[in-house]
């Protein structure tokens, strides 16, 4: 700490240059905070331990291909299976295509396999008893101002009704909540009864989109998955059974590989940042060669000078980066406030800060390394005479 004032003074020797460099570091880490928040939300959805005992069985060929409803009883009979349910993607639109949210028809016992969704017993019974009944997550209900008793007309994009109509009018009978803030995005969905859906739809009757299987022993999940897939082996509806986490990750990557996108953008941003801050540090050290020589005259060792320059570089990254991440935290908070907790963004905290600080230190060392080595190697007599 006794050298801190020296490092600080060196960093702010050229205030304007340092200000603009800090601004660029801030911008880079603001972007990092926002993108990592999005990436984290997707990762949390697929890695959360909640649901670790659930398997998803889909068509081996494509998630969009249906499976026969008759498979339910056979899956249920597989040793190690505790409970089985199913669902079918609906993909309805409410009023306007921009109002997109996930909508699915589900089996009667669907909620049994999702105990983390909180819904009252009365609403649960109403969902069971009402043919056209639907439930929605609290975030979605809040977004559209829905309350129990409302009628929700959905426009079908895939499944018209038998009479040719595209409008499916559902009765909102319940609103569920998800306590885990990292899983709030699950509140942004609508579910209605599969029996009504199957009865009223024009095509693909008697089929389901995917099965959800709860296993008795999660350590034996792989064996159970293999046994389920063996049921349909060599048939026209071969299945692929995987953990819910793996399924979620695969599902998300259908739309976009969030990790790849975030990694690519951040790679480009940090590469530019390394060039920019590296140039700043090189320039700052080049200007201060005589001063570094004087430090050596006064007793600083070669390694001491190396450490001073590296600390200066790391301090620059940490100051700008911390400000950027703090700003990202404020921005994410504001976005979540404005758009609701279902927006796929994690609060900028914990692991994002850990990764961010790690990157700041790493980039600081990378951009400071060459100037620091130059400072370390300089010969006092040459540096003082300007050679």
């Amino acid at each position: 700490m006794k050298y801190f004032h020296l490092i600080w003074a060196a960093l702010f020797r050229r205030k304007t240059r340092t200000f603009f460099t800090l601004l660029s570091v801030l911008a880079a880490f603001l972007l990092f905070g926002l993108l990592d928040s999005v990436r984290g939300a997707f990762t949390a959805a697929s890695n959360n331990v909640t649901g670790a005992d659930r398997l998803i069985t889909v068509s081996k060929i494509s998630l969009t291909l249906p499976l026969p409803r008759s498979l339910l009883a056979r899956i249920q009979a597989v040793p190690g299976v505790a409970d089985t349910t199913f669902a079918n993607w609906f993909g309805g639109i409410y009023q306007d295509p921009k109002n997109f949210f996930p909508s699915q028809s589900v089996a009667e016992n669907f909620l049994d396999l999702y105990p983390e969704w909180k819904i009252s017993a009365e609403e649960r019974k109403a969902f069971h008893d009402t043919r056209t009944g639907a439930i929605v997550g609290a975030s979605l209900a809040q977004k559209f101002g829905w309350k129990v008793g409302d009628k929700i007309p959905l426009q079908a994009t895939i499944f018209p009704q038998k009479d040719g109509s595209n409008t499916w009018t559902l009765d909102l009978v319940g609103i569920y909540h998800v306590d885990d803030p990292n899983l709030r995005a699950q509140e942004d969905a609508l579910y209605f009864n599969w029996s009504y859906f199957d009865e009223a739809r024009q095509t693909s009757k008697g089929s389901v989109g995917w099965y959800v299987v709860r296993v008795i022993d999660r350590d034996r999940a792989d064996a159970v998955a293999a046994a389920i897939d063996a049921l349909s082996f060599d048939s026209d509806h071969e299945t692929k059974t995987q953990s819910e986490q793996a399924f979620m990750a695969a599902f998300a990557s259908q739309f976009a590989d969030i990790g790849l996108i975030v990694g690519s953008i951040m790679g480009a941003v940090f590469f530019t940042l390394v060039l920019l801050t590296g140039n700043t540090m090189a320039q700052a050290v080049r200007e201060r060669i005589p001063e570094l020589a004087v430090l050596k005259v006064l007793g600083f060792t070669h390694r001491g000078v190396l450490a001073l320059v590296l600390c200066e570089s790391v301090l620059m990254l940490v100051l700008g980066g911390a400000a950027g991440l703090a700003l990202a935290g404020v921005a994410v908070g504001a976005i979540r406030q404005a758009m609701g907790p279902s927006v796929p963004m994690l609060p900028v905290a914990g692991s994002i800060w850990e990764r961010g600080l790690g990157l700041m230190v790493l980039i600081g060392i990378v951009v400071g390394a060459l100037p620091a080595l130059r400072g370390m190697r300089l010969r006092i007599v040459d540096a003082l005479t300007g050679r």
Partner: protein
Amino acid sequence: MATLVEIRNLSKVYTRGKERLEVLHSVNLDIEEGDFVALMGPSGSGKSTLLNLIGGLDSPTGGTLTIGGQPIHSVGDDALAKWRSANVGFVFQFYNLMPALTAQKNVELPLLMTDLGAAQRKRRAGIALQLVGLSERANHKPTELSGGQQQRVAIARAIVSDPKLIVGDEPTGDLDRQSATEVLEMLRMLNRDHGKTVIMVTHDPKAAEYARRTLQLDKGTLVEDAVRALA
């Protein structure tokens, strides 16, 4: 008086590519503790090189250099740095203060190499600044000080760790006559009243008059050694 600096057959050769330049040839010299020595000679005579070797800023090519009983010609870089911080104070022609630090913080710099706490460092730097008459300028940065004042801050920095030896490379070379006189008087005071051994390179005969002993170098060789009684 005891011998502080003992130089035997000291030589220094610089190599630039294929060119080999012998700057000092077999210099033999003793400097007593408490002496005030002026090193003079034409440009390229080797006086600054000799001063750099005595100050431990450079290593000789041959010969021995013993200061305060310690052979410094053969010690490694880190040990030499440590030795410098404890035993030598430096005053340069262009002051070489840190522009971003206040006078107080500049003077404290050599004390960062010690185990002293912040309060002790501040107190000692304050005393050194008082000694050079700049207490009231402690919080000023170098750009806010005149050349003479900056050189006095440099002198305060040179003496703050209480070294036996002060070396100056043209310490008045960038100053007007009045400031130069002030600086030379200060060096004389440090020599006379505080027992510091001062070795100073200068081109200025008037500055050399402040020294008790004047050494003339020419082409890397000691050609004259004159001692006078100080006023």
